[in-house]
């Protein structure tokens, strides 16, 4: 590529939803052959801006130029015709079609007027290979794990040969290994002159891949800077409008007796013979590569999936857990990985979401006590500074990070002795992340046993007392904090070091 040309220029973009001004007067310029990162807290408006760019939303005001020409996009197809491809934050695939059909969705190759299945399968296989993803192009998409689906989503955008590609938190469910593969592809795309917009909360990744960084805060554009010469601390300051000192504060706490013990647990498919124990006041990390089986394990412990072998003990006594209700009775709580699907009931208010698992306790003769219900919600909205601090607001109108805080509140209301958090800070901004870490710290200080599933190594290293690494459904022996290092975890996760 010779001279740098402007791929995209958005000017004065505002977008109002009923009740929310998501964007106000945002400007964004992206050049061909460069990676432009957008960072900002949860709810800052990043996804909304990208949905304007991809034709999902019409902006309330503002204009968009593509390669120097002003365009008006009313639907995604318009944007695609202009060479804009988007990898959405929420997965956007068709579960009932095959992987190959998903990759070519909307532009299937034809032969004699018919869909050319053979070609699709061949080409999809090549692209998935290039991404380093071992996924069968003929598999039904709905049968894949979330992370595999994420890879398909990326393959789909790439396969379209876009001029501008937008990735909205593409790595949130990818392992570091897969992230590295993705970055290789991004660099190759850069070389090909593609303009890349990259959204992530992982500032380390931003610094690694981005050429330029735009910071959004509360729907407004704060600044655009070259990535060279900006530090993570600087970005954070611009994002939140103040200094945030320690991202991963490790609160010291007293470690007590074992609370949860898992012995030889297996479901016959996703995980086998898993054993570990968590003690009061301890944060046990559970990490590994994509599809290692952590989520399935957690769901099984919480009674949402069946096990075929092994047992679970609480406080030394074996317990039979065959439903989430039984798990709650046994003192286990589980903050699920997929907030949108498993975490919140969007049509209910924050209050109604928080009290859901304890409704029966708040009831007499079947009737829910409204005062007890309100009190519960108010205390958590305050303690966790949920924004806006209105328990009666529909939870779907909150930003991701605030929803996550509400979900954690919900589980604390059950007074658990063991709290399992599955990727609790995935897709959560630094400010909210620090706050979630602070909350977890306080909980263990109070004697709770916490299992934290996380794919982010720095987070695992930062907050966990011990770490169990899973690989292919098998769990390693716990690694003590003192013996933890990024290299050690990767070795266990990839099988270079035997568990």
């Amino acid at each position: 590529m010779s001279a740098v040309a402007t791929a995209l220029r958005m000017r004065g973009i505002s977008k109002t939803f009923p009740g929310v001004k998501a964007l106000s007067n945002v400007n964004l310029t992206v050049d061909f052959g460069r990676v432009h990162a957008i960072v900002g807290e949860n709810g800052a408006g990043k996804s909304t801006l990208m949905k304007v760019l991809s034709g999902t939303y019409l902006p309330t005001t503002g204009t968009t130029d593509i390669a120097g020409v002003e365009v008006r996009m009313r639907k995604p197809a318009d944007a695609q015709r202009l060479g804009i491809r988007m990898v959405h934050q929420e997965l956007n695939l068709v579960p009932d079609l095959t992987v190959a059909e998903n990759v070519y969705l909307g532009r299937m190759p034809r032969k004699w007027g018919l869909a050319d299945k053979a070609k699709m399968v061949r080409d999809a296989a090549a692209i998935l290979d290039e991404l380093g993803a071992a996924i069968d192009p003929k598999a039904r998409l709905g049968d894949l794990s979330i992370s595999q689906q994420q890879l398909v989503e990326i393959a789909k955008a790439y396969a379209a040969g876009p001029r501008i590609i937008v990735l909205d938190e593409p790595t949130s469910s990818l392992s570091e290994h897969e992230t590295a593969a993705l970055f290789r592809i991004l660099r190759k795309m850069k070389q090909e002159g593609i303009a890349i917009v990259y959204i992530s909360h992982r500032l380390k990744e931003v610094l690694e891949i981005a050429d330029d960084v735009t910071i959004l805060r509360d729907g407004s554009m704060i600044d655009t800077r070259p990535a060279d010469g900006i530090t993570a601390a600087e970005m954070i300051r611009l994002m939140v409008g103040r200094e945030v000192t320690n991202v991963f504060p490790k609160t010291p706490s007293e470690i007590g007796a074992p609370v949860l013990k898992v012995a030889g647990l297996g479901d016959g498919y996703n995980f086998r013979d898993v054993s570990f124990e968590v003690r009061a006041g301890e944060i046990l990390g559970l990490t590994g590569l994509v599809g290692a089986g952590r989520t399935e394990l957690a769901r099984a412990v919480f009674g949402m999936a069946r096990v075929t072998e092994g047992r679970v003990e609480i406080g030394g006594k074996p317990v039979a857990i065959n439903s989430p209700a039984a798990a709650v009775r046994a003192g286990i709580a589980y903050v699920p990985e997929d907030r949108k699907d498993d975490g919140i009931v969007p049509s209910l208010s924050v209050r109604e979401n928080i009290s859901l698992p304890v409704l029966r306790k708040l009831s007499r003769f079947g009737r829910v006590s409204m005062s007890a219900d309100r009190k519960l919600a108010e205390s958590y909205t305050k303690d966790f500074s949920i924004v806006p601090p209105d328990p009666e607001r529909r939870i779907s109108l909150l930003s991701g990070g605030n929803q996550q805080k509400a979900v954690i509140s919900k589980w604390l209301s059950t007074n658990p002795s063991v709290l399992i958090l599955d990727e609790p800070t995935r897709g959560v901004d630094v400010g909210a992340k620090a706050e979630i870490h602070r909350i977890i710290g306080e909980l263990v200080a109070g004697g709770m046993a916490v299992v934290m599933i996380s794919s982010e190594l720095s987070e695992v290293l930062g907050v966990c007392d011990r770490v169990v690494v899973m690989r292919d459904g098998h769990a390693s022996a716990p690694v003590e904090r003192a013996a933890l290092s990024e290299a050690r975890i990767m070795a266990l996760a990839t099988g270079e070091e035997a568990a």
Partner: protein
Amino acid sequence: MQQGTANERFRSGGPLFDLLSRGGLAIAILAVLIYGSLASPVFFTAGNFVNVLTSMAIVGIVVVGMTFVLVVGGLADLSVPATIACGAILSLALQPVIGPVPAFAAAIALAGFCGLMSGLLIGYVGINPIVATLGVGTIVLGIVQAAVGGVIVYGTNPDTAALVKSRLFGIPAIVLIFMAVAVVGHFALSRSYWGRWTIATGGNYAAAEASAVPVRAVKAGAFVITGLCAGLSGALLGLTLQSARPLVGTGYEFSAITAVVVGGVSIMGGFGSVPRAIAGLVFVQLLTNVMVLQGVRTPVQGFALGLLIAIAVALDVALRRRAGGAL
């Protein structure tokens, strides 16, 4: 962290919609009342309102159950005609065998059992409600018919008919029963934990499940409730008519769904209340009454009713979208 400036970004969205959608129906009912009073001297008379209430009662009881089904995300219970027939046929057929009161109770219980069958298939096996209730309805109706030899069943105890047709303070007993069912249904849905579970399960099944809500039971429960309601309706219908044939319940499922939907209860689940559904029913019934009084032909009545459903729901959807966030 985000304060001051941030809060200005958030205004209320929900209540606006709520006001409009609730107010809309109230205004519509008022309009029918005013038009009816002007158009027909008979309309605004106690006698006419008692008539409207009487013809509302039987379907009204089903409406209460159907509200639970829609709210829990169960789409619709199409086994209602069968469960009504079950209630009507058995409450009469069992009279000579076990006496009128036990027959009444047994008929309702069996209809509830039929609801349980649908509920188990829908809640525990995960069958689509349309298919499950169609299938179970067909089977149950066939079995009940086979049990009585496939013919019409006649009443053997006229006293029971007199009881059902009796009045208290001028209000027919059947209407009082309907009102009682409605009040219980309302409190169960809006104030009890079971009701909140029902709304949560309809709002997001997976999240409710992950929140230790016994989603399967809650989903099944909505169909048991509807089965019991339809059984009660059927038993009352049987006693009123003193005869029951297999098709006595035909059409009630659609009337009930119509009322619930016109009341603004979303067929997608997670939202709705009994008073809303009943308001929908009142509106439909008053409108029909006015049309009857005006001598509007039956086909035109059906036409108007169909159009009304479509318009009511389209308006509701439009309002909801304006109020922000698809529910």
